[in-house]
């Protein structure tokens, strides 16, 4: 009984999706829902990776385009484009935000042995911001660490309450 439970928790489920043509994945536990994405209201004066904000049943949710943030081609909106609504702490603060996915692929079940550390260079997402790498039948899957990507010193640097630098 105890053994099976331990085995169950060791297997984590990841959702894989496309970011700028690359296959990325985040822990399914952080994903609250997946909704269709059509357009967002642009927010001026924030980093490029913020596509804008959308109204999710009365709550305003920022939309993050990781592709733009990582220097890949900005995500083009097609009929496959989705918004992954993520709920997790970022920089220690409970956050709800949308991550733009060019397309959603599949749910991968990964045991500890299936996740390997990323190589020191060559990955489209900087190795420091990856939780690891895995393989699917189509090739590499990059497991994203969203807290590190979006937290202090990450893609959103210069947003938050900080006044726009260099304005005066």
């Amino acid at each position, binding site marked *: 009984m105890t053994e099976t439970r331990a085995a169950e928790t060791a297997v984590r489920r990841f959702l894989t999706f496309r970011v700028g043509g690359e296959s990325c994945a985040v822990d399914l536990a952080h994903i609250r829902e997946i909704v269709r994405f059509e357009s*967002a*209201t*642009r*927010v*001026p*004066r*924030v980093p490029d990776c*913020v596509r*804008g*904000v*959308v*109204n999710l049943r*009365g*709550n*305003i*949710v*920022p939309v*993050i385009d990781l592709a733009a943030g990582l220097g890949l081609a900005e995500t083009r909106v097609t009929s496959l484009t989705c918004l992954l609504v993520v709920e997790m702490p*970022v920089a220690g*603060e*409970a*956050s*709800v*935000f949308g991550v733009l996915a060019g397309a959603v692929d599949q749910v991968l079940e990964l045991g500890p042995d299936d996740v390997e550390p990323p190589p020191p260079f060559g990955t489209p997402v900087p190795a420091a911001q990856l939780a690891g790498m895995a393989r699917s039948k189509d090739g590499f899957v990059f497991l994203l660490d969203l807290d590190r990507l*979006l937290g202090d010193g990450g893609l*959103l640097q210069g*947003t*938050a*309450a900080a*006044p*726009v630098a260099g*304005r*005066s």
Partner: protein
Amino acid sequence: LDFDRAAVVELFLAEAGESLDAMEQCLVALERRPEDAELVAELFRNAHTIKGNAASLGFAAIAEVTHVLEDLLDRRRRHAAEVTQGFVTLLLEAVDLLRQLLGKAARDDDSQAPGQEAVVAALRRAAAGDQARWPAASPADVPVPSMDDLAAAATAAGRGFRVGLDKLDRLVALGGEIAIARSRIASLLEALGERATHVLEAHRDAERLDREMQELVMRTRMVPLGPSFRQHARTVRDVALALGKEVRLVIEGDDLEADLAVVERLRDPLTHMVRNALDHGVELPEVRRARGKDKVATITLRAYYAGGRLVVELADDGAGLDRDRILARARERGLVGAAQSLSEREIYELIFRAGFSTADSVTGLSGRGIGMDVVRRNIAALRGTVEIASRKGEGTVLTIHLPLTLAVVPGFLVAAGDERYVLPLENVVECLDLPPGQSATAAAGVVDLRGEAVPYLRVGRVLGAAGEAAARESLVVVEHGDLLAGLAVDALLGEAPIVMKPMGSLLGEVRGFSGSTVLGDGQVALILDVATLIRDARTEAAA
């Protein structure tokens, strides 16, 4: 039974919190009127009530402290103890201690608070006739009462019962969302034309009722300013004592009402302003006497309504701002160029700039690590403004203008390129066509408005909006302080209710916007923070 106890404890905590607020105010007053027996009687009554209730609920720590407190007050009642500064300080310490214990009691924790033994021992010594002075509390440690205290004090003022603030917030938000959903239905019905006339009429009737209900919801959130204002008496007393200054606090207009959230969020900036006035504004008694002033300084905290807004003024009769020193410091900090000359008003404005407060001006008292820039930002977050006026040698006045409510505000929708933005209608003075002959691409310009030169910003350019500019632009004239300014936009889209929503913790505050709102068609529009946009334009022009 457990449920019953929880309800009784909750009631006890609320009432005891009010009693402590009352005691604090009595103590501050007692220091000025040591012979006032009424005040002592009131103190005794409050301590006694807390003691009785605490004991019956089994909060032994609270009962112990209030018991010795009663002993000491009884001694004073019999004129066996003298009201000295030390006496008042000791009793205030006891009040602080009881507040801490109430916090513990809220978690059903009856253990002692840190420092309890020392305070109780001092109370015992004093009650036994020892007049030894108790060291003054460091003002930085003075606890700031919580929102619940405020709400409690507010409900105590009239007959009523307590409602969780979260419920009220949700009620207001829901009201706003219903208003938006309704305006969407109305526009759909209008589009149906004649066929829907009767439905539209019925809808309009319901809308009227809806609006009435919303107004009522708003009114339930209005609380008097008094309890919040009177808390500053304690700050003034403690800080003045620590600085060796003599100050009287005059409060006016404390019976006026404002939204609970406004009152609550005004408290921190006001506390900082009061500390600043005590620390930097008010002179030492001997200096004041040498200048021919009353050695007791006066700080006036005054509220009044003007133009549908709440105005809160903090005035001191101290030394006033020193223009030369401010300018020198601003130059030192690189905020002002060496050759730049500024008007008096512009110089005073410098104290609101980020990076103006420096380590050497931030003393332990007014410091708290925040400067006037944070005060201004906090007030701007309430859709308010703060202005300063000062006369050397005569004093300084800070004037805060605030909206009476934060929930649903009438907005005005404009288009810039392909994008839509909302601004609070209260900012809008008038709308007109942008006169021909203006450059169509510049980010800013000047128009002649009935003989007055009015600067304007081209919103689409300033915010980098995508899309074509209109052939004929419109100008929305807005008011900021006493400056008129224009916003050039591509279309005026009419009024729209604003239910302010934050853009999520990930983005935090975005400069130039006070938040976002959902439009009738379900899309999001950002709310322009007119004050910041204008200030940034001024700063850019000055740089």
